[in-house]
């Protein structure tokens, strides 16, 4: 601004129109510089692929040869594809096991820490949350070691309590593998929901419990008659989020078993992933069609969640 004669002569003079214009121009430039890279990147790398996936689902395309437009054929094939239904069934089994286990364990742990005032409370809190910062790769590898038939911790532990099942490969047996993927998911997820529930519990007024204690209510009564009813909204959201997460998650299974043995742990996301990126022949069109189906289901579920979350504030 030194080039303005005004400002040299009168230091306190109001900004000239020239100065204002310059500031306006600077502001515009700033807004452009600030938004174009991030917003442009978002359009290019997020929105555009999402739109494109609709088109891809109508193609027969291996990614190399020219794509062939096939209309709804992929979706028709999908309905006939037993592997799709098998994978979806596995998803359902995981959703109805992992979700209640995570919610149940997190609530119990949170309740114990919130209401019992044990020593080392904060140590427990820090420890319980820890698996949540570990990567899926670390958690999955860790558990694959635990499950190993020859050197695994699980078989050794069972032997210690007198159950010798030999070199049983938990992740290699068709009957056991799917169930064996449940504990790693639960183990990895409890920490997060535990902290969420713990925070929610700390907002429940102490006076409510005091009244119940005077009436002689046991911990079990207090947990089921006071704590859980007051936390219903947040538990409901947690359940829905967990179900969605289990439904679309497949990285843990990719690392643990990659769907094997012979497809007994295949889930829908992994099935799609392997059609698109696996070692066999790629079929981007068909995989995209499965992706579209997942998209529709997940967006619908998300809309339902939003309906729940808008009126989640409970009154005491």
């Amino acid at each position, binding site marked *: 601004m030194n080039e303005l004669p005004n400002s040299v002569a009168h230091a306190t003079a109001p900004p000239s129109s020239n100065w204002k214009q310059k500031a306006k121009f600077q502001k515009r430039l700033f807004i452009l510089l600030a938004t174009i890279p991030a917003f442009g990147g978002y359009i290019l790398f997020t929105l555009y692929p999402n739109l494109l996936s609709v088109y891809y689902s109508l193609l027969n395309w291996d990614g190399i040869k020219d794509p062939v437009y096939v209309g709804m054929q992929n979706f028709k094939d999908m309905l006939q594809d037993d592997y799709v239904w098998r994978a979806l069934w596995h998803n359902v089994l995981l959703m109805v096991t992992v979700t209640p286990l995570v919610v149940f364990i997190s609530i119990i742990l949170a309740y114990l820490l919130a209401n019992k005032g044990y020593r080392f409370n904060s140590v427990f809190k820090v420890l319980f949350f820890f*698996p949540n910062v570990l990567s899926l*790769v670390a958690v999955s590898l*860790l558990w694959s070691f635990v499950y190993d038939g020859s050197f695994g911790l699980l078989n050794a532990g069972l032997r210690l309590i007198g159950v010798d099942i030999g070199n049983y490969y938990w992740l290699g047996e068709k009957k056991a593998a799917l169930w064996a993927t449940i504990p790693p998911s639960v183990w990895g997820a409890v920490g997060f929901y535990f902290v969420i529930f713990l925070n929610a519990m700390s907002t429940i007024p102490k006076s409510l419990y005091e009244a119940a204690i005077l009436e002689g209510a046991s911990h079990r009564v207090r947990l089921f008659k006071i704590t859980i009813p007051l936390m219903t909204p947040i538990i409901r959201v947690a359940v829905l989020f967990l179900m969605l997460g289990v439904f679309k998650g497949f990285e843990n299974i990719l690392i643990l078993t990659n769907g094997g043995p012979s497809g007994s742990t295949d889930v829908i996301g992994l099935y799609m992933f392997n059609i698109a990126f696996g070692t066999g022949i790629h079929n981007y069109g068909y995989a995209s069609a499965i992706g579209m189906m997942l998209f529709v289901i997940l967006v619908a579920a998300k809309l339902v969640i939003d309906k729940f979350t808008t009126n989640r504030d409970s009154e005491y």
Partner: protein
Amino acid sequence: MRERRTIVDAWWYIILLIWSVTILFPMIWVFYESLKTNQEFFQSVWNLPREMQWSNYKDAWKEYGIGSAMVNTVYYVGASLVIGTFLTAINAYVLTRLEFRGRKLMWGVIMLSLFLPGINALIPQYILMRDLHLTNSLTGIVILDSFSESAFYLMMLSGFMQSLPKELEESGAIDGASIFQIFFKIIMPLSTAGIVTVAIFKCLGLYNNFLGPFIYLGSPEKYTIGVAMYQASQIMQYKADWVTLFAGLMITMIPLVLMYIFLQRRIMEGATLGAVKG
């Protein structure tokens, strides 16, 4: 209000201890197994190593490429973190504290991403990256991960910036500061706490990211730590060098453990903050 301690309490306390053990013991187990020889390793799960085989760590670092993977990871996480956090910060500022045409529309379009599950976009995104010649390149995934904005972090930081007093810009403008100066000299320093929280979460997310690097990085010398560990575990079926793999897993977890030890309060607070909003 204190209650009397009873026998039942002891049972509950045992539950807490059991859960603690399920978390701690597998870690400790991986640690002491990683210091055994392969012979000792197969003898018994419970025995401690007779002699600490620190060379396992050296082998993992060199032979299974954990060392070069760590270098790649530092580049990938570092670059994406710096660029991504800066873009989020400047964007949050513009979208919350400046008035301009199209602002609401832009915000709405970004918030749309909260509804996108992302799984259906994996394939088109891959084709796009392939057409841009960004596959099998660390810089490629840096570009992908730092420019594809996350509505979640943007919301986190916007909330923080909204709480700063409105007079900041005005007094800055009166003193003759340009908007660039206002942002870099006033807003950024005052938002440090929010920016650091966002950066911590981005850092954890990037370090733990597996699927992106797994899809995009083809050649072993470009692997990030997660992909390198996965590939190393795959070849173990033919090459039963488990102690070295255990050492590799320890190396993978060390940065996370350190981050958690130093930043646990921020991490736990931030996690619930996101949950309340999102």
